[in-house]
């Protein structure tokens, strides 16, 4: 239940981080040579693959109870053991994989799009727009983001969708600030000034010149942010605010398993491990991407 510190790290301003400098093939070569990015992407790709398989086929029905075989130790019958209802843990982890990914994806998409919608005009136009947006962000930031998410789910009621919503909303300030700072950094650059002088409409300048230039830090933050969102989402589910049974969401599985933890170590070990590995792969990927795409953030945590 911690926020990734990097989520708030701001890029240096005034820097030109045009992607155009790196032709795609060169980028790919560097990507493969970057151990962190490569390992992370392979691992994450594998998890995505398993999640895709998990929505179609699992060794056992993930919600089918089998009281005779409850609490079976990991072995040939049940690869990772069975839970207190005799449900196969491996099948449940597979079946739940896409949910964790979905939490990350949906909440970060929400946060990124809101961040763009708020941060672009704030940075580009400045003035009262900027003031209004940034005061609102200050209000949100006067709370640890996890508490904010907790509050939102408490109000909206426990459900997986509300968790995505809450995690997304709670991370909007980070993206807004990043986008705004990036825009501020390039707003005064000669070619933007030139475009303006040529009479380009603000919308055109933003889509043609500004967005491509802030894409790199945004991708890095979004990758790391997805990892953070999965963690926060799992924490909320662990607190009983997420999906409702029998949905095999990993945080919820852990929350359920906790009451039976002394009846079998495998009940708590594997769901947590699944979350840890997924988050780890995304963090590795994010670290690697940062080194590649965003040389100015290379030395951030």
């Amino acid at each position: 239940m911690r926020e990734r510190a990097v989520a708030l790290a701001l890029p240096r301003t005034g820097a030109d981080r045009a992607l155009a400098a790196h032709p795609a093939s060169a980028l790919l070569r560097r990507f493969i040579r970057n151990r962190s990015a490569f390992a992370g992407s392979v691992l994450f790709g594998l998890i995505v693959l398993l999640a895709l398989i998990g929505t179609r086929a699992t060794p056992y029905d993930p919600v089918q109870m089998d009281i005779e075989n409850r609490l079976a130790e990991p072995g040939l019958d049940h690869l990772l053991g069975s839970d207190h209802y005799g449900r196969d843990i491996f099948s449940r982890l597979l079946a739940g994989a896409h949910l964790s990914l979905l939490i990350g994806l949906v909440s970060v998409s929400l946060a990124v799009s809101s961040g763009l919608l708020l941060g672009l005009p704030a940075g580009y136009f400045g003035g009262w727009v900027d003031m209004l947006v940034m005061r609102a962000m200050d209000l949100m930031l006067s709370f640890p983001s996890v508490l904010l998410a907790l509050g939102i789910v408490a109000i909206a009621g426990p459900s997986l969708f509300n968790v995505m919503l809450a995690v997304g909303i709670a991370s909007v300030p980070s993206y807004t600030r990043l986008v705004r700072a990036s825009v501020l950094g390039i707003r005064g650059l000669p070619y933007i000034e030139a475009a303006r002088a040529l009479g380009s409409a603000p919308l055109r300048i933003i889509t043609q010149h500004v967005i491509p230039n802030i894409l790199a830090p945004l991708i890095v933050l979004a990758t790391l942010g997805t990892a953070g969102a999965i963690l926060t989402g799992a924490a909320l589910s662990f607190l009983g605010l997420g999906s409702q049974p029998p949905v095999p969401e990993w945080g919820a599985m852990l929350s359920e398993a906790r009451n039976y933890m002394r009846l079998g170590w495998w009940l708590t070990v594997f769901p947590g491990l699944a979350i840890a590995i997924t988050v780890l792969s995304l963090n590795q990927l994010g670290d690697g991407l940062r080194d590649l795409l965003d040389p100015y953030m290379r030395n951030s945590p």
Partner: protein
Amino acid sequence: MYKRSSSNLITRRRFIKIGGTGAVAVLAVACAPAAPAAPTAAPAAPKPTTAPAASGAGKPGGQIRYAMNNEPDSLDPAKTAQASAFNVMMNLYDTLIWQDPVDLKYKAGLAESWESSPDGLTHTFKLRKGVKFHDGTPFNAEAVKANFDRIVDPATKSPQAASKLAAYQSTTVVDELTAKITLKTQFAAFYDALSQTWLAIASPTAQKKFGDDYGRNPVGTGPMMFKEWVAKDRIVVVKNPDYNWGPPFWNHTGPAYLDQITFVGISENGARLTAFESGELQVMETVPEGDFDRLKKSGKYQMVVARTPGSPMTIFMNTEKAPFNDINVRKAIMHGLSRPDLINAAFFGLYTPADTPIADNTLYHTKKAVGMYPYDMEKAKKFLEDAGWKAGPDGVRVKNGEKLVVDFVDLTTYEPKVVATQALLKPLGITVNVKALDQATRVAMGHKGDGHMFSTALLDSDPGAIQLVYHSRNLGGFDWSRIKDAELDKLLDDQAKEPDTAKRAALLEQAVMKIMENAWSFPIYNFARLFGVSPKVKNFRTHPIGSYPYLYEVSLE
């Protein structure tokens, strides 16, 4: 942290209906009459679930750590309604009279003797001499008057005690040790109410001194004295060396054996269990069902199943909403949900199945209602077919384009029961949505009828308490099946006023049969409190009525 392991139980007990003849403490059990009509209708006398006190003196000294599943809100008997508070308060306070756990008769407490007027409206209590509160205040008739007047004062905002004294008019101090209590209306359960710790006598001096904070600084006459309360961590009580006014059925006289009891509230099952098994605790309440058997088999602990009387754990079906507005669908549940399977899946087979609204260890339980709806999947399916719910393509039944989907709203702690129900009703073509929520939310949803299935048990020695969940007066309250039945209301009202035990039994039987015939609710299992006790703890036995342990009797090896 959203796991509350606390049960949603009522802890009121009204046991005895006193005749208006001036007889004092007539014990319904002792004079349970023959059946008024059919022999099957004989009110079953509850079997004492507690053994008589063990003889032989225990060794004085030592202390125990006792874990409950939540921290009490207040130790002011007038201001709490919580079972955990009752648990602690039983050690700090005495009541005017006590109920013997074995013969179920009322015995002397702070009152040595008592008598009632023929009209049942005035009750005179001769109080025990020489009793002192822990703060040195003498116990007398003034104290009784001060306590009872305070309870009914609206400013006290009493959640439980005031309802016990709903009929209370006034107390007259006849002399130092004689208190005369006058009632507004006949109130047959008066003696039962007085024997409950909600109506225990607290020091009026301390109540004045601490005002609103009295609940955190309780002063009673009981065998243990309050020492400290570290919020969210522990409540410590220590031996009262002067104590020698306990009820006659306790296993010894004089001060308690234990020097100190530390009560801790640990709501997380796993955490409470870990603490118990690592030897940090000597007594643990609410052992998780999955671990009970394991601990018992280990042979290292005394494992106690203390059944509680009242209503079994019951699923209430919202009769205002489709599909449960159709009696056929309700009957399909009655036949189609297997109790043993449910108990096995959710509770590791620990509880005994129950199929009537009044549990079989409770007064006026009727055998007539037992086995009315045997488990029979074919019958259940037929009821659904008759109701027009036909099998759909994905196995879920459909009627007029609507799928047979119901929301089961319950406490997060009760999730296993709901998940098991979900799995067990699936073969019938019924989809159960699990709504596992916190107490505040799920109670509000139940009160509003927002959902199809709700569940609760009722912990009460007096079966009349079923009115709390079946009387239309409580619609918008705990009448979660949303029953509005004038006939049932009348039966429930009449039995509450009926002084004759035989007639009362018959009325209650009619009420129970009515509930059963209409398939308004689905009783699941007999509720019990599960204790884990260290082998070092001797003489651990529980009060049969609320299953609270008499820690006064406990000693350490």
